[in-house]
């Protein structure tokens, strides 16, 4: 055993020897655990690299400091306790690091992330670093409000059960005047959609001021509700430069009777948590568009995985989150997307390495987030969407509604008929994965908007290799 005097002699010492590596450490139920994918520089020992990540994301600096000895520093040191080579990826390692609960402020995503992803991603001995997954202890989860509404209450408020919800993003996303913009909203809602959505970059530009947009959109929402007898909504994007501006816009949306407001991920974690609290106080559904996420979630070797962002957002408290489509135009490996959807919707998420989920996660009653599938999807894929994504999801067909050859109402009707017919067939016990195209064709016989949609988009697919894929393949088991 080293003496304390040796341990704290001034100078530089490997992180592993400073106490940031402990292969015998048995994580406590109350520890936050993170798994990072580390790519050490050539010649750097992976265990030392893992210890460095633990050190730099908790108490360490580059040299020994005597002031550690004024503290119960063992508690505050994160401990790397396991390093595994990544299957099939030489030079990459999964390193597991445990953090004591005392390191984190209650109910603060900003504080949690300032430690876990604060300094360490630029650390020179690593070529690259990716936060793959986190286990959040129940003790810490219970300090977060979570989604202001949640899937169950949202469905009860909207009085819509047993099928995915349907939405669309108004297009073109930029340039429409408020009056023309509201026209798109009305047509799509009357045609059969439940929600229409502002796009992420619709805020308050020269061509359309936010107040004007809100007024016309609420006319559209109410007119469509009268035309159908259904509750309808439009995600009014309240994203703005300051919290004061966002509160002003959200308050106006509430005053006009909107059931939902929207924010972009780029407003930051603290602003998201503030809006979550506002939404809870004001009985508002809070929609989150994940603008900007691909800059750090898409590449496998560096950044933060979207499953971690999803966990943080469920804790921070949003009701909707864009979480991938599998079949559409945006990144999305089927297994990885399944894992992300589980994180949004489960009461208890089970470890599933094929889906990129590294830990069991007890959600401790935290309300569920409705995943949103948006980007390059159309009615002809309904059987695939339902099979991959399930029922508690919002399917958003922007181009697939507004680009319909017979008009926006017809586009919305095509989507709604395709959805209802597929749910009905599934419930009747039909094999929708294989019979899907036939089921749609049967409905298209009496529904001409659906027929036109199928004819227009029948061959549209986006078959590209995903970049964010699982590292663990299923192995055949002997029965």
């Amino acid at each position, binding site marked *: 055993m080293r003496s304390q005097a040796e341990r704290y002699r001034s100078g530089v010492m490997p992180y592993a020897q400073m106490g940031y590596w402990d292969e015998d450490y048995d994580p406590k139920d109350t520890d936050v655990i993170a798994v990072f994918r580390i790519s050490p520089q050539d010649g750097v020992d992976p265990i030392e690299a893992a210890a460095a990540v633990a050190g730099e994301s908790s108490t360490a600096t580059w040299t020994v400091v005597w002031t550690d000895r004024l503290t119960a520093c063992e508690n505050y040191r994160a401990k790397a306790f396991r390093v595994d080579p990544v299957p099939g990826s030489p030079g990459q390692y999964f390193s597991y690091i445990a953090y004591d609960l005392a390191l984190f402020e209650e109910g603060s995503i900003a504080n949690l992330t300032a430690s876990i992803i604060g300094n360490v991603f630029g650390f020179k001995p690593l070529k690259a670093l990716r936060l793959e997954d986190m286990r959040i202890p129940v003790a810490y989860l219970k300090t977060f409000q979570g989604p202001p509404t949640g899937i169950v209450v949202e469905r009860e408020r909207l009085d819509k059960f047993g099928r995915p919800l349907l939405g669309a993003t108004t297009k073109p996303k930029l340039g429409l005047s408020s009056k023309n913009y509201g026209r798109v909203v009305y047509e799509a809602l009357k045609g059969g959609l439940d929600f229409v959505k502002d796009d992420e970059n619709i805020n308050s530009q020269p061509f359309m001021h936010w107040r004007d947009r809100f007024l016309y959109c609420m006319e559209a929402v109410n007119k469509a509700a009268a035309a159908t*007898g259904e509750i309808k909504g439009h995600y009014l994007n309240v994203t703005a430069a300051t919290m004061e501006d966002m509160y002003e816009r959200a308050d106006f949306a509430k005053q006009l009777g909107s059931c939902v407001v929207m924010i972009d991920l780029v407003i930051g974690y603290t602003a998201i948590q503030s809006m979550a609290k506002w939404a809870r106080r004001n009985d508002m559904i809070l929609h989150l568009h994940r603008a900007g996420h691909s800059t750090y979630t898409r590449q496998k070797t560096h950044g933060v995985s979207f499953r971690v962002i999803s966990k943080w957002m469920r804790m921070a408290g949003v009701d909707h989150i864009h979480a991938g489509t599998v079949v559409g135009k945006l990144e999305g490996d089927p297994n990885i997307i399944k894992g992300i959807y589980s994180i949004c919707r489960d009461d208890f998420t089970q470890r599933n390495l094929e889906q990129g989920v590294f830990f069991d996660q007890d959600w401790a009653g935290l309300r569920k987030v409705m995943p949103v599938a948006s980007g390059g999807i159309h009615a002809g894929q309904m059987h695939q969407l339902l099979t991959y994504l399930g029922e508690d999801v919002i399917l958003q067909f922007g181009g697939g509604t507004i680009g319909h050859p017979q008009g926006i109402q017809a586009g919305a009707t095509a989507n709604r008929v395709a959805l209802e017919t597929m749910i009905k067939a599934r419930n009747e016990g039909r094999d929708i994965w294989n019979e899907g195209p036939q089921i749609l064709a049967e409905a298209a016989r009496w529904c001409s908007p659906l027929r036109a949609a199928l004819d227009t988009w029948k061959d549209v697919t986006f078959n590209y290799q995903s970049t964010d894929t699982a590292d663990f393949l299923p192995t055949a088991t002997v029965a």
Partner: protein
Amino acid sequence: MRITQGAFSFLPDLTDAEVRAQIEYSLAQGWAIGVEYTDDPHPRNFYWEMWGNPMFDLRDPAGVMSEVLACREAHPRQYIRVSAFDSRRGFETTRLSFMVNRPGDEPGFLLKRNEVGGRQIQYTLESYATLAPEGRRYQ
């Protein structure tokens, strides 16, 4: 107009065989089925009249179907829906709800616009049918 509440309102009205298939599916999920009716179809009228309590102990689709038919016979000119309730933890809510009867003529809703200051409008939806007292609508 056609009120499009419920899971299958964009499809042609379900036949009895189709209704029964959805009941079978719901029972197979372990859900309890309730039959509800109303002559006030406002989208925020959450409490339709219950045709008895949800049938927690009735697992036979034919039995449930006979309740649907009895409700339809008693209230042929009202809206009737079948709702399936899931008591499992994490849900404890309705999991499927669809219409199984409608009045022949659906007059729809009046959208009232109360113009207040600053271009703002307060909207109110009113069903034309509910201008008559309860029980004397859709005659």
